């Protein structure tokens, strides 16, 4: 089979997937207290609709979508709302957070209503009904960008979407949650694909899987022919980071290039993570909102693996209960929310799991190396490997000089971290470019205000 990949740049960091690869998805016990952030997605944050001391049960709406680009937040547990306060999220921001005291027995009982499979005939159900189900379940992209699903599925009328790409690349080192989900829930994911096929009228479905997951490629190829699903094929991809980036995946599979500042539907493509598709399946066939997700807990922990975690579970509980705690707490240097390339190191372990938490990676003093930022030696490696074809070194320099005019390119940066990874003098290039985006926005706003003044 011809294996494709994106054409610009890319790196091959050590995969380190061996810790949790092939480990069955296990459930993590319900903690005694959960804290639910109201801002778990891109767009306007949800508005709280519950009050202090109110009783809630599994699946109740806690936060209402505020506007179109926003998503519902459901209660993952049964219990009492203890307080609504400003608290730090796993992303490091201080957001309004609901703390719920959990009634463990009632939660187990109430969760049973999501175990009954409903008889749904996709062909008979209307497009609008399916979209409504997805919207009511509060589904957002589970790959990390957390873009509300119903917005992605309703592109502007002048944009025709003809290709759906299922993102099973999982190019981040350490993470194996998507891989395991693909192995265990193959048929369910394919049913989810059929729902999306119906909703967005796509002509062709590609399932993009990197070649370091041969078992998943084989399984999907078999099941597609067995279930007789139409216009669906597996696209095996060469292993390269950041293959799972939306724009890279589109380029690798279709050869199309998303223009600067445009979105995938401008080139007629819809990209969905496999985890998201599985959530769609659950929403349609079980009526289950997003109250849990599959996440990898790996690295410097006793029992690394893939876990089904309820939203709002504290990282500390997840690590203790699921992964058996750290191997040696003294030697832990960093706990990352997400993968090690794009994730953020968290400051304290009481932050909670959100819809976008794709992994919890603990790094020991062996794996986590910190070095001071050195001077640029003009080697140009960051330019060679940039998957977006940017010049990270120039963008960093312009940021330092606060040179707003030169920073338009920074808005195309996908913050994959490849440039910081290859830099021989450990410059924090992605961090500089992130600041550069802010510098560019301020400069742009100033320019526009001058224009309106005149």
């Amino acid at each position: 089979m011809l294996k494709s990949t994106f054409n610009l740049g890319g790196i091959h960091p050590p995969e380190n997937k061996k810790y949790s690869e092939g480990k069955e998805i296990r459930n993590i016990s319900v903690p005694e207290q959960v804290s639910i952030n109201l801002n778990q997605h891109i767009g306007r944050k949800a508005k709280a609709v519950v009050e202090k001391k109110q009783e809630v049960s599994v699946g109740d709406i806690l936060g209402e979508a505020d506007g179109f680009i926003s998503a519902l937040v459901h209660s993952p547990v049964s219990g009492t709302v203890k307080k609504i306060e400003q608290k730090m999220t796993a992303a490091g921001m201080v957001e309004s957070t609901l703390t719920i005291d959990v009634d463990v027995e009632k939660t187990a009982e109430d969760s049973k209503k999501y175990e009954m499979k409903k008889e749904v005939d996709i062909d008979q159900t209307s497009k609008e009904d399916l979209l409504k189900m997805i919207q009511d379940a509060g589904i957002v992209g589970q790959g990390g960008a957390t873009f509300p699903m119903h917005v992605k599925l309703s592109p502007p009328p002048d944009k025709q979407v003809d290709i759906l790409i299922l993102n099973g690349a999982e190019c981040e080192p350490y993470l194996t949650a998507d891989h395991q989900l693909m192995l265990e829930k193959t048929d369910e994911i394919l049913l989810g694909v059929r729902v999306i096929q119906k909703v967005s009228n796509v002509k062709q479905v590609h399932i993009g899987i990197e070649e370091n997951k041969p078992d998943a490629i084989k399984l999907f190829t078999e099941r597609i022919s067995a279930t007789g699903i139409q216009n669906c094929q597996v696209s095996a991809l060469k292993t390269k980071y950041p293959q799972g980036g939306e724009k890279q995946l589109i380029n690798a599979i279709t050869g199309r290039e998303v223009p600067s500042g445009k979105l995938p539907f401008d080139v007629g493509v819809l990209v969905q993570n496999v985890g998201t598709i599985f959530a769609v399946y659950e929403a349609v066939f079980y009526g289950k909102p997003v109250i849990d997700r599959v996440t990898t807990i790996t690295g410097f922990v006793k029992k690394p693996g893939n876990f089904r975690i309820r939203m709002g579970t504290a990282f500390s509980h997840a690590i203790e209960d699921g992964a058996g705690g750290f191997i040696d707490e003294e030697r832990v240097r960093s706990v990352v929310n997400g993968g090690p390339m794009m994730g953020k190191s968290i400051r304290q372990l009481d932050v909670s799991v959100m819809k976008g938490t794709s992994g919890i990676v603990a790094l020991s003093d062996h794996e986590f190396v910190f070095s001071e930022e050195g001077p640029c030696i003009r080697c140009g490696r960051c330019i060679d490997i940039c998957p977006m074809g940017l010049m990270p070194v120039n963008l960093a320099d312009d940021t330092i000089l606060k040179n707003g005019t030169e920073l338009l390119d920074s808005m195309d940066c996908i913050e994959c971290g490849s440039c910081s990874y290859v830099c021989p003098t450990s410059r924090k290039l992605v961090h500089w470019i992130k600041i550069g985006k802010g510098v560019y926005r301020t400069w742009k706003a100033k320019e526009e205000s001058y224009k309106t003044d005149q």
Partner: protein
Amino acid sequence: MNELVNGWQEIAITAASLAGIAFLAGVALYYAAKVFAVEEDPMVEAIEDILPGANCGACGVPGCFSFAEKVAKTKDMSLYCPVGGQELSDDMADLMGLEAVEQDKLVARVMCQGGNFSTRTGQYQGIKSCSAVSTIHQYDLTCPYGCFGYGDCVTSCDFDAIHIINGVALVDEEKCTACDACVIDCPINIIEMQPYDKTVFIACKSIDSGGAVKKYCEVGCTGCKKCVKACEHEAIHFDSFLATIIPDKCTNCNDCVDKCDTHTIVISKDGIAQIKDKLVENAEVNV
């Protein structure tokens, strides 16, 4: 010999013709200057002479010359150069023969004195700059509202009036010219402009509950409301566990300062540093 004579003649012709051109050009320029003369207000130059010449832009127009032009044109005495202050306003009014308008002198004040009195979690190892810290929301200070102390304001200050002392920015109020540069550069808006005369202010921005603040900061406002009760002039506004002084009502009576157990209310004339010294002494005694 002939060659020599010819030489002298050539020089004479050249000199004469150049002198002629110079004279003609001079006449032309003289008339051009008369015909195309631009009426310039001598006042602009006079005002520019007495301006500080810092070209800082604090007055709202780009540079001192533009400010002088604006003053001369509008004759508006409420235009204010914060660097020159009241003295300059008086001088300008004298120069233009107008009444000076009384202006309040403002100073920048950092509404945080946490720094080393505040606990830290984790270890921030990124770029050492406040804007860098605020873009990724990963910092080591536990208080989500406090001053990071990486000194973006120090680099932005043209007047050497702000420094990082004890891990927190501190303004030298005598040097501060209220140019707003630090206020604009601070990514978390912890620096505020306040009237110089009202020397008492509450150096905290945390709206967390008292218990939470006590856990992470020795000098944060816990919302005990003692200052609100102590103030006879109703000058302390209290909202969501944070007291703030309303400068218009404050009379500098300092009643609230003694009542504050956490030393969050400070008198700027004393210098925050002194109060900090006191705290350090107390801490040493306790140990």
